[in-house]
């Protein structure tokens, strides 16, 4: 058996020799399994934007982009395999779209000198760039999301003494906001109930029975994949008012609300980027990618919330690559240069408008200390009859007085555990 493996090893290494002189953006996607509903549109958006850059601009700075897609199925073992198989091919930045895989890759990628961009997921305290030199989670993280939801509720009326339930995916992802919400509960005097839902989240009867009994004033959800659809359906079944039900940005796509039909009307979700396909860039995608027959996947996701997020992730990666090219004066950048580019990234309204994405996200700049961006959070609401999400609250800052100490505490613990000395001096 082992001899056979040896010969296979030689054959495969020869077959998988890197394609040189491309900017390689691996996409650890998942188009199968219980989380595919979220994985497919994101991967499509990411691939389409990179394709658009190739077709319209001739790549980034004259170098073509190459998206290496690798199926992880949201599974950490396959994530490791994907990481190892793509890193040798010059991968510039990893975006695993899974908090579990991100946790796994943080030490590995840091040792290999490859940056990770966990946009709106992953380890929240990675916002402290002094400790996490190779991990970026701009423009917003889980704790910004938790605080953004509470801020929104406070703007709607007094929150003291109210009951708020958190329905969360019982994993590293879902557990992330608990500390923040507990701190906020203490600060603002509301009562927090925790309702974990186990992977994959198809069974939520008991959680919603508890909600029906306790009648919390608001429900916040940190769900992903099939769990979202089930939760919205269950909420509709117990006639929980949808206006009081708020999802994190991973629980706010078309796929999550469409199965519940009319009953999902009024459901709210946080966001950190624009929704809808009313941006000039979509005309370019239609012209250069879809009409050329190069649309990723089935090509039916364009303009959905998660497609836009994939597009946004690709746009930020491409801008960081451009920045890296400018800093280092070479078009053919390495992962280390890419890291420098991400750290020096500046996103302005003028830049976004030039890219065909005016007002798509907040303006921000990344620094060595702050890898987390400004943490501006907006609120969207679902209109079931028009089948559209619309932004009902502009991007607003979150409560950094609560979040920053938590980030410092958690990253200090990580630094002590792994004997990391600050890299920003």
């Amino acid at each position, binding site marked *: *058996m*082992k001899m056979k493996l040896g010969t296979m*090893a030689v054959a495969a290494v020869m077959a998988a020799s890197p394609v040189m002189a491309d900017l390689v953006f691996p996409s650890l996607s998942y188009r199968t399994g219980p989380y595919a509903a979220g994985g497919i549109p994101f991967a499509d958006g990411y691939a389409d934007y990179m394709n658009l850059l190739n077709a319209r601009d001739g790549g980034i700075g004259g170098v073509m982009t190459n998206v290496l897609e690798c199926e992880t199925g949201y599974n950490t073992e396959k994530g*490791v395999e994907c990481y190892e198989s793509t890193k040798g091919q010059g991968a510039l930045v990893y975006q695993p779209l899974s908090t579990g895989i991100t946790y*796994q890759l943080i030490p590995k990628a840091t040792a290999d000198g490859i940056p990770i961009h966990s946009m709106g997921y992953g380890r929240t305290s990675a916002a402290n760039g002094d400790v996490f030199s190779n991990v970026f989670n701009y423009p917003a993280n889980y704790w910004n999301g938790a605080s953004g939801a509470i801020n929104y509720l406070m703007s709607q009326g007094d929150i003291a003494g109210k009951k708020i339930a958190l329905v969360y995916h*019982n994993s590293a992802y879902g557990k992330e906001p608990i500390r923040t919400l507990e701190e906020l509960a203490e600060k603002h005097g509301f009562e927090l109930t925790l309702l974990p839902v186990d992977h994959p989240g198809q069974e939520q009867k008991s959680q919603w029975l508890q909600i029906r009994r306790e009648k919390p004033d608001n429900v916040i959800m940190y769900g992903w994949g099939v769990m979202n659809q089930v939760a919205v359906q269950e909420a509709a079944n117990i006639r929980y008012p949808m206006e009081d039900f708020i999802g994190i940005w991973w629980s706010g796509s078309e796929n999550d609300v469409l199965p519940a039909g009319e009953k999902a009307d009024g459901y709210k979700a946080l966001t950190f980027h624009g929704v809808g396909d009313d941006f000039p860039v979509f005309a370019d995608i239609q012209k250069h990618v879809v009409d050329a027959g190069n649309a990723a996947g089935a090509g039916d996701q364009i303009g959905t919330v998660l497609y836009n997020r994939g597009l946004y992730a690709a746009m930020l990666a491409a801008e960081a690559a451009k920045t890296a090219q400018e800093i280092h004066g070479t078009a053919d950048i390495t992962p280390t240069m890419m890291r420098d580019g991400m750290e020096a990234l500046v996103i302005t309204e003028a830049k976004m408008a030039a890219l065909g994405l005016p007002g798509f996200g907040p303006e921000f700049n990344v620094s060595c200390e702050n890898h987390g961006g400004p943490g501006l959070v907006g609120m969207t609401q679902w209109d079931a009859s028009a089948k559209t999400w619309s932004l009902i609250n502009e991007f607003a800052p979150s409560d950094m007085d609560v979040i920053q100490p938590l980030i410092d505490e958690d990253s200090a613990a990580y630094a002590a555990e792994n004997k990391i000395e600050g890299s920003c001096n």
Partner: protein
Amino acid sequence: MFYREAGDFSTTYPEDSQTFPIRFDRYRYYLVLAIAIFVIPFMINDYWLNAVFLPFLIYTIAAIGLNILVGYCGQVSLGTGGFMAVGAYACYKLMTSFPEVSMLIHVLISGLITAGVGVLFGLPSLRIKGFYLAVATLAAQFFLVWLFNRVPWFYNYSASGQISAPERTVFGIEVTGPNTEAWATYLFCLFFVILCAVIARNLTRGAFGRKWMAIRDMDIAAEIIGVNPLMAKLSAFAVSSFFIGISGALFFAIYLGAVEVGEAFGITKSFTVLFMIIIGGLGSIFGSFAGAAFLVVLPVALKLVGVDWLGWPTDIVAHLQLVIVGALIIIFLIAEPHGLAQLWRVAKEKLRLWPFPH
């Protein structure tokens, strides 16, 4: 021709009862060991380590463990994932509590702790059998995962509930954490595989193994001829859990580095290991190797062929893999219930007679 007993004389009892009585077999075994120890460490890179060799070695240990319980002693278990989780969390607690102790000791103690937990959950096997025991071990699976999710002490009160392996060494060489060398982790796992395989082989052909097989074949008859079912079943649970605990500890500390219990050690893990021994061969140490190799290499090979060479979409290949594994399990259950190990046995029989079959 080459593979035959003729001319291979044994003059002592130990020679006659050794694991590989045929000279050709013995040399092949030495050759495989020599390649595994002296050749592969010099050639291995990160990709082959993490995509093929580490999962293969670690799953082999788990498959040997489960094979002792299911294949040799006939006690169906669906708790493998839970027991691996015990090994992983025991290893994590040991690693963080005693950072200066060698990883070798930590992994062995994790195995012992898992053996204890295995005996505890093996107690119902004295009263219930077959499907009912499968359900009881399923309860162990869910209980253990729930426990490690629920009690923060097990994950040192970290905010996310994840456990991550800090850097630890064996004889001054790093084997966990991000800065390890491929050969070091490979040899570390290989050491445990060889250790477990040798122990398992010698246990199963000795008095213990005979008792287990007697219980498997007919427990009432075994009791009548003097096999103590309590001792036999509990020892099978203990030995099996010991191996599974070692594999869980290695799976977490060496292979993944960071683990979330529900995702890494869920019910699917139990099924994966069970499929390995069904495809590899119940009641065979070689079968554990073959089954683990098959289920680890198959997805990688499919990906290489489907995605990298033929350029198919990744989701089609992922679905195809499910179809193929499912079909293979059905085919093996119908056509060859003893798995790849039996195919190997048949091939050896044919080779003995070749080139002059009857």
